[in-house]
Every structure is written in structure tokens, then in C-alpha cells.
């Protein structure tokens, strides 16, 4: 109810909104079995992008006895890099389950789909506050330790700032 105690200055809010707005950038892809792949998303020429949080999900498939099953094991490890400054934001390839929420998701490639546990709810958006400059790229290199291809999606939640 505190909002009713404040005076809302609509002119000031519209002024700020004309210079910045909420935005999201999505990276997703599939990494082949025992492979490593590089994925990028462009910040574009729309303006700088201030990342505030990230969320992510991924599959946990493996081949066991020649059958594709969902083991629930965290096979993917990723390293995010700011291509604008060419600096890594991680010291190493970090297992996705340590920075991605909701995390594991079900896969229709699993032969045990009907009995696989449901995916987790979105529980914690991971804080990753960083200003990516206009026309730069955000990249993530992902290693897959599984003998089966796995896919992932990572969403950066933030604010677009017009120049």
C-alpha cells in the first residue's frame, strides 16, 4: 500500500521510459554429444543493455544401454563472455545447474518421458549485473559431458538504454 503514499510524477516517468525500457535477450542451442559449442546473441544497435538477472534451463539426457534417458545429471558447463570487452565473466566452465534456474527441463527425446519427473518451477533468478555495450555480442561456450546431445536456453533480463 506504500505506493499510495507517494506522489507519482508521470512526466518524469515518461521521460525516463523514453530513454530506457525493460528488455530480454535469449541464447539457446543444442550441444552435440561430448561436444563444445559457441552461441551468441547480439546486443544490437538498439542501445546498451544492462543485464540484471539471468534464468536458464537445460536438458539432462544420456544414452544408457543404447536407450536415451533423462538421468537428471547436470552435463552442461558454460562460460559466458562479454564480446564487447572480450572478457570472460566466469573463471571456468561452470555447471549450468549452479547458475541456471529453473534448471533441468523435460525432453521429448527421452524414452522415459511419461515417468520423468516434471521440470522445476522458476525459483531463483540469478543476479548477473553487467552493462553490455551497443553493437556488442554476449557469447556462451557450452561443453556437454554427456554421450547424448543436450540443449539449453538462457535468458538475460535487463534494461535497454538508448544512446
Amino acid at each position: 500500500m506504500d505506493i499510495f503514499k507517494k506522489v507519482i510524477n508521470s512526466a518524469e516517468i515518461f521521460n525516463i521510459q523514453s530513454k530506457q525500457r525493460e528488455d530480454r535477450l535469449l541464447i539457446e542451442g543444442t550441444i552435440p554429444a561430448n561436444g563444445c559449442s559457441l552461441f551468441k546473441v547480439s546486443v544490437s544497435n538498439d542501445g546498451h543493455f544492462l543485464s540484471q538477472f539471468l534464468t536458464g534451463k537445460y536438458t539432462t539426457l544420456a544414452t544408457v544401454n543404447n536407450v536415451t534417458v533423462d538421468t537428471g545429471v547436470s552435463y552442461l558447463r558454460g562460460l559466458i563472455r562479454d564480446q564487447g570487452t572480450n572478457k570472460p565473466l566466469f573463471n571456468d566452465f561452470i555447471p549450468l545447474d549452479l547458475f541456471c534456474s529453473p534448471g533441468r527441463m523435460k525432453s521429448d527425446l527421452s524414452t522415459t518421458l511419461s515417468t520423468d519427473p516434471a521440470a522445476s518451477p522458476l525459483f531463483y533468478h540469478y543476479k548477473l549485473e553487467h552493462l553490455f555495450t551497443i553493437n556488442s555480442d554476449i557469447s556462451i561456450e557450452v561443453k556437454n559431458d554427456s554421450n547424448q546431445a543436450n540443449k539449453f536456453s538462457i535468458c538475460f533480463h535487463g534494461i535497454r538504454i538508448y544512446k
Partner: protein
Amino acid sequence: LKIIIDAYSDIQPLLIWKRYKITNANRKVPIPFAYTLPFGFSYFLETIVSKNSEQMQDIGRFGIAMFDTFIEFTRQARNRKLQSEPTPLSLISSPIGIDHVSYFPPPAPVDQSALGVSSKSVILTEPIELDYLYIYRETINYDLSFKCDIDLAYDLYCDVVLNGYLIPDSKIAAWGLKNGTCND
């Protein structure tokens, strides 16, 4: 919220991940952790994310002892503990323990830096905010203390991720912080 771009310039997030193996032999031995910062940077530690495998029994104090090691421009080093006792990871971090059987020993996956093991994925929860600025030093130092009163039937593993920011000296100076005096 009006974004001031200059406030974010030169500061970058840095997640630092380590995976540890705890055996019956080293279950009471602190394992040192040292991450060397790039020259001219401080590190602002915001939160810790961790998970560890557990046996069926309570394995005892499975904690972290953080040391604040200054390397000032005068090159006088000093140590200061940030906790009176190793604080159990489960009390300051997320998402905590998982069953030992959730761990897949070699030869399943495969990376030396990951000690050759993978584990069941976990659900992140919100960790405690530590908000500690390691200022004017070249390394972040802390010891992981794995103190356990029972014999371990299996090797256990622990993941630790420090979530924080690299802050250049120029920004520290711009904030008006003086050499070696912050957090004193």
C-alpha cells in the same frame, strides 16, 4: 529507476567456480582456495552458491572459513578471519546438499577441472548476501574446512561458486575509498 551508465563502467561480474573432492583421508583438513585477481582489481563478493554430496549420516561440520588477507601497497600482509568458526556452507549458500548416490563417478563424464564427476542438477534458491569487498589485494583467500566425525564410506564432492564483481582501482578511488582502509 534511471540508469547511470558511468556507474557500471569498468565493473564486471565474475563468477569463480571450484569443485573439491573430500576423501576419508582429508575429511578434517582445510582445503585452501586462492584465486588470483587481475592486477589492479579488487573483488566484491556478493553471494556464494554451493552444493555438496552427502552420505546418509550427518557428516558433521562441512563448512567454510573465510580469511581476509590484505596485501596493501606497503606490502604488509595480515590475516583476519571472517568467522569465529568455519560456517557450514548450508547456512550461507544455496542450494546445499544432495544425496551421494546422485553423483556419477568416473568414467561417466570427463573433465579434469571438474574432477571427472558430474552430479544431479539442483534447484537454485536464494543465497544469503554477504556483500564483502576484498580490497587492494592480489588473491582471494579462504579455506574450505571439511570436518567430519565419522569415517566416509565414499568420496564426497563440493561445488563452490563465488558470485561477485571485479572492481578496478580507478573506481575504488572514485568512490573515495583509501588504500587498505576499507572494511577496517
